[in-house]
């Protein structure tokens, strides 16, 4: 690993960007609250309003062959919240996430994101939904014949950023996740954890309003995990809603955020400031 455990994780220190006049939103500090001036967010399809960022109403998702992904989930995630989604393997966490980015559509029930009912969202609008959401996929989903830098750049190019902007932002964000010296590596030349961090960088680079991470630390050592979680928390403090699906019990227990627990596609627990397991008084290992 490039960042030794003894290095004090300098790679995760937020890049200090001097405060500038907010005239040019792109000159704003890296993770200022999402810019609302209408220019950079031209494709933004979220409807402004006091409603929750994500709302599930009686959502059932049945895969082909009767496999149940979600089995009647109703819940809301408020704008600016930090939420952990926990549960055993196969409990429906990834299904929940894939419904939010409309990679999947519910069998019944409705999913609303940023005030938009995804069931009514036209197919041509789906790219704009996804641009407003940053998603770290459990299986990374990097473009195999593009380098780390090019993978991150792609997310910027999609949103119409200039070449100049791309050259400025990509190294910045890759440094932030601790990949300073791996810009030109192809995914297959990176370790699992490094690929995961490229995926995280790509999700962050567009300053999403909603950041979703499916097992973002699944392949990382405890030190790096801590760094990534720290980063997600900082991003959350700038006003970004963050949803993290994880098996990482230590992190969840340490951070004491809202926890939604799934089991067999149902919500079995939804608590503010909670740990990985239900607090039954038993001593956690």
């Amino acid at each position: 690993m490039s960042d030794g455990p003894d290095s004090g994780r300098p790679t995760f220190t937020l890049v200090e960007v001097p405060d500038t006049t907010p005239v040019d939103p792109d000159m704003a500090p890296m993770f200022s609250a999402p810019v609302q001036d209408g220019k950079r967010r031209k494709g933004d399809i979220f409807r402004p309003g006091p409603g929750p960022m994500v709302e599930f109403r009686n959502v059932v998702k049945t895969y082909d062959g009767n496999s149940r992904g979600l089995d009647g989930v109703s819940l809301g995630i408020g704008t600016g919240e930090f939420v952990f989604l926990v549960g055993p393997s196969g409990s429906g966490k990834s299904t929940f996430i894939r419904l939010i980015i409309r990679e999947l559509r519910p069998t019944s029930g409705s999913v609303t994101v940023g005030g938009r009912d995804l069931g009514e969202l036209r197919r041509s609008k789906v790219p704009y939904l996804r641009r407003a959401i940053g998603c770290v996929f459990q299986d990374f989903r990097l473009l195999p014949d593009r380098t780390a830098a090019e993978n991150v750049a792609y997310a910027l190019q999609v949103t119409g950023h200039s070449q100049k902007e791309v050259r400025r932002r990509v190294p910045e964000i890759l440094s932030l996740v601790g990949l300073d010296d791996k810009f030109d590596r192809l995914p297959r030349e990176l370790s699992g954890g490094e690929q995961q961090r490229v995926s995280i960088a790509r999700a962050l680079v567009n300053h999403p309003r909603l950041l979703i991470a499916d097992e973002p630390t699944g392949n990382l050592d405890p030190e790096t995990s801590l760094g990534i979680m720290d980063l997600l928390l900082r991003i959350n403090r700038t006003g970004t809603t963050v949803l993290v699906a994880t098996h990482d019990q230590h992190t969840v227990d340490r951070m004491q955020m809202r926890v939604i627990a799934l089991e067999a596609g149902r919500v079995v627990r939804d608590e503010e400031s909670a740990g990985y397991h239900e607090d039954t008084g038993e001593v956690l290992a």
Partner: protein
Amino acid sequence: MRIGMFFREALRSIRANAAISVAATVTALIAVFILGAFIPSFMYVRSAVDAQTAKVDVDVYIADTATVPQVNALREKLDGLRTDGTVAAVTYVSKDDALRIMKERLRDPSVLDELPSNPLPAKFNVQPTEAENADVIVAAVTNDPALDPTEGIVYPESTADRLLTAAKFVQWAGFVLIGILLLAAVLLIGNTIRLSIFARRREVEVMRLVGATNWFIRWPFMIEGVICGLVGAVVAVGMLWGIKVGVVDAWAAGADTALTKTGSAAGTIAFPLLTVVLVGAGALLGAVGSGITLRRFLKV
């Protein structure tokens, strides 16, 4: 700026999928080559047939006994056919002209000198705009009082019919063949690009998931198809040029000059124009092929 980026994307994907790009280019090359060999041949045959059908003219012979008003009436009738577009030209050939022409044609014109008077009737030579119109002309002037009773109306009925049938056949066969060729080319290129996209299906899926619009994904693929089509077309045109210069022109020069002179009305498409058509066809094949194929993969 965005075009530049799409272009770079297209080039990178050609490089990353070299084998498939070469296959698509070769497909375009073959398709354009066949098209390029066929179009001039087809146009040559058509124009040869046209040249023949253009010779289907109608001779309306005038009786020596016809009065001047009768002849004028006949002339007006034929002029009327010209104004309604049935007839392209009407030429009056007097008895003297007819004799002169006859003299020119004969190897020994002195035989005519022995005739006591000019036996040849005057005539109107009528050129129909279309070979089919010969019937209309004949119908219009049959029974005209000015007609020469023995010669009447002369036109190469059976020849015209046969030529017309041949011309129509050549024309339709040509269209059908070109259609089949184009369809085959589009399917082939489409199939090649389908392979390429199938190989990159996951990639396209990821692009969709990070918020790329369909056109953002489509443009590089279309440009890629156009580049393959263009390169294939240019190589095919080069090969056709070689064949034209090395084989066809040489053959034409060596062929019987008398023959080529009599058939000189038949021509074919000029090579520069053919080049433009073929290069355009190559680009279009590439764009359509990739455009159609991509549709199915953009549904995520």
